[in-house]
């Protein structure tokens, strides 16, 4: 009979697998559509992924289009990598000895990636606002640009948790070497 905590643990693990696969598919689709729109058929920019229409941006300036789409792809890739690290964390977590160096390192990496995602999101939003002032239609882009401030806030929380976890690793190793 599984405990409630084990059930929640398994459910969250499965959810993160779904999120990871979803983000990988999104990133891959964006990359392929991006290359198609640049080198094969510019009409591809009308529907890069699930209704993302940046054709007006491509028509306005090719380099602005490349920059904006690169930011969107990078943001998606960073989030996919974060989900991957969380899955790795779940895989190597031992309920009997949860505080180990590898888990602490993974949590630190997740906080660093969250910081990177936050900065990317802020840059992308600022860039989109600047492009909007030029009169380019970027309505469909809003769902692909996350709130950078919120991501940075979460990055801060994960960083604090990472520091507490590192202390936990120290305390556990000291406990293991206490006879």
């Amino acid at each position: 009979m599984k405990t409630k905590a084990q059930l929640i643990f398994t459910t969250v693990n499965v959810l993160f697998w779904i999120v990871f696969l979803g983000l990988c598919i999104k990133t891959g689709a964006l990359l392929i559509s991006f290359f198609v729109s640049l080198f094969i058929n510019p009409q591809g920019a009308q529907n890069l992924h699930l209704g993302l229409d940046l054709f007006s941006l491509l028509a306005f300036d090719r380099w602005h289009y490349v920059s904006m789409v690169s930011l969107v792809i990078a943001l998606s890739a960073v989030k996919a990598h974060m989900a991957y690290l969380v899955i790795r964390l779940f895989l190597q977590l031992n309920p009997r000895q949860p505080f180990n160096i590898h888990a602490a390192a993974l949590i630190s990496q997740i906080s660093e990636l969250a910081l990177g995602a936050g900065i990317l999101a802020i840059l992308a939003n600022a860039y989109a606002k600047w492009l909007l002032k030029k009169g380019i239609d970027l309505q469909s882009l809003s769902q692909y640009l996350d709130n950078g401030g919120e991501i940075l806030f979460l990055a801060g929380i994960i960083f604090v948790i990472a520091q507490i976890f590192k202390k936990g690793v120290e305390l556990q190793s000291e406990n293991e070497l206490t006879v």
Partner: protein
Amino acid sequence: MAKRKMSLNELSEKVGLTLANLSILKTGKAKAVRFSTLEAICKVLECQPGDLLEFRENGP
């Protein structure tokens, strides 16, 4: 242990510690020792804590 002609296995059984923990203690890797453990070892080996512990500057 040599004086009492006792092996590590025998000592671990009498003291109630695992071989791994005794080995940690013997090789100087232990970070802390419980008083109960020290008492048990001294009782079995018929010695004083000072016979088992030594102070060294800047770690082992």
